């Protein structure tokens, strides 16, 4: 069984540490991968949910993209 992880904490961290438009910047960067996983999340989806679980590989991509755009490391809780 594939492990799924919640991506919301990454976006919360990115909002606290990144640009004003960081959520949309992350989503635009990885839009091709999101579509491959049949995921169409927006800033509003992220703001209105506490749990969005995705497969490990997509989680890692979101984390790497967020870290690159924010310019610092995300410490997993």
């Amino acid at each position, binding site marked *: 069984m594939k492990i799924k992880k919640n991506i919301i904490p990454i976006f919360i961290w990115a*909002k*606290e540490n990144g*640009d*004003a*438009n960081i959520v*949309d*910047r992350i*989503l*635009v*960067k990885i*839009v*091709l991968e999101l*579509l491959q996983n049949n995921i*169409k999340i*927006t*800033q509003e989806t992220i703001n209105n949910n506490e749990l969005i679980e995705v497969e490990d590989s997509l989680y890692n991509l979101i984390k790497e993209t967020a870290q690159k755009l924010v310019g610092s490391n995300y410490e997993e809780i």
Partner: protein
Amino acid sequence: MFDINDYKYDSEHNYLEIGGEAMVFHCHHYITNLQRTILDADYIDGRLFLIGSAADSVYYQLSNLCDGLSIEESKIMAQDIYKVFGYGLIDLSAMDENGIELQSTKSFFAKTWEMKFGRAEKPVDYYTSGFLAAVYAVIYKKDLKDIFAEQTSCMACGDSTNTHVVKLGTCNFATYPKKQPTVFNKTPKLKIDWEHEETITNAFMGAAATLVGNEEGYIPAFGVYLVRNQSDYVNRLQFEFVRQMTEVAGEYGITLGGELLMEAGHACGFFTYGGIMTSSEWEGAVKPYLKTKEDWIKALASLVNAMGWGYHTAVELSEQKAVFRNYNDFEDLSYIRMYGESEYPIHWANSGGFTGLMQLVYNTDLINGERIETEEGFRSMRRATTGYKTKMTKSIASGDDYLEVEIYK
């Protein structure tokens, strides 16, 4: 040779045209945000339209401005408009039949990119590459489709100069079909419900003409760097970005792309409007007329109606909700000139700007003198949970009589 005062402001339509091109002011926060948005989507070759949009607009404009001029006079005309419009300084004396390798040390794009985001990984002055391609095409009667234009060094990357190479070769940027002339919507305007509107608009009507490039070719004003953009250049960047995002991701691409474009407008509203409302000009000429927070918004609308962005007005205005209109806004007019009709509203910059204005007046203490025009101030405000939502409801390009947008909590 070029004098901005030769071009009369169209106060009926709140519009300025130079050499057949509609002109609009933008600030460096907007321009750099917009360009980074495009470059972030690295699965799109944004370079094609970043250079191509500039080349197309400048080609059309210079074809008109240089009509009847000699080669040397045309070079001076091109240098002049580049400087007056706030893009920096260029020396075209070395341009000949074979093109040019141009070096410059004054570049709006390189300077403001580094100010805003720090060092760039790749050259960022696509506009000047497009500008030079257009100059070469007009002066030496070449087809844009036969020109290669590239920036090979950039001060934003740490280089000592910007270097641009323009020559005959395989075209490496997009070219576009001829666009349509501007058609204004004749719908009567709903005037701003404020007795001091005309006083403020008239006070700033002549001031816009003084906003021209200084000895370095920059326009520092209100705490930002302004540029006088060919409206179709800057708007095509938005429209081509969304078109390509749509090809990649359908409606989801429009949503994501639109959010980012609106955010660029939001930054413009926050920094530029914030700068205007804390300026000495505002303090002297506007503030004596202001009693309520709503007056601040109506005064800002009255002022920017002298800037060439269309006629801004408020249908409804309170802290909880505002409905704004813009008659003959620069984005819709531009879309119609270049693309015709749209199936959805396309005025992201205007709508983001209105949202930024609401945030400034109602969600900060700006009206009591707090200076908040810092990057951190912008981030803090945008992180606030009490932010405004934006809904673009009407668009001239979609068949409506005016732009309309709702901003609400």
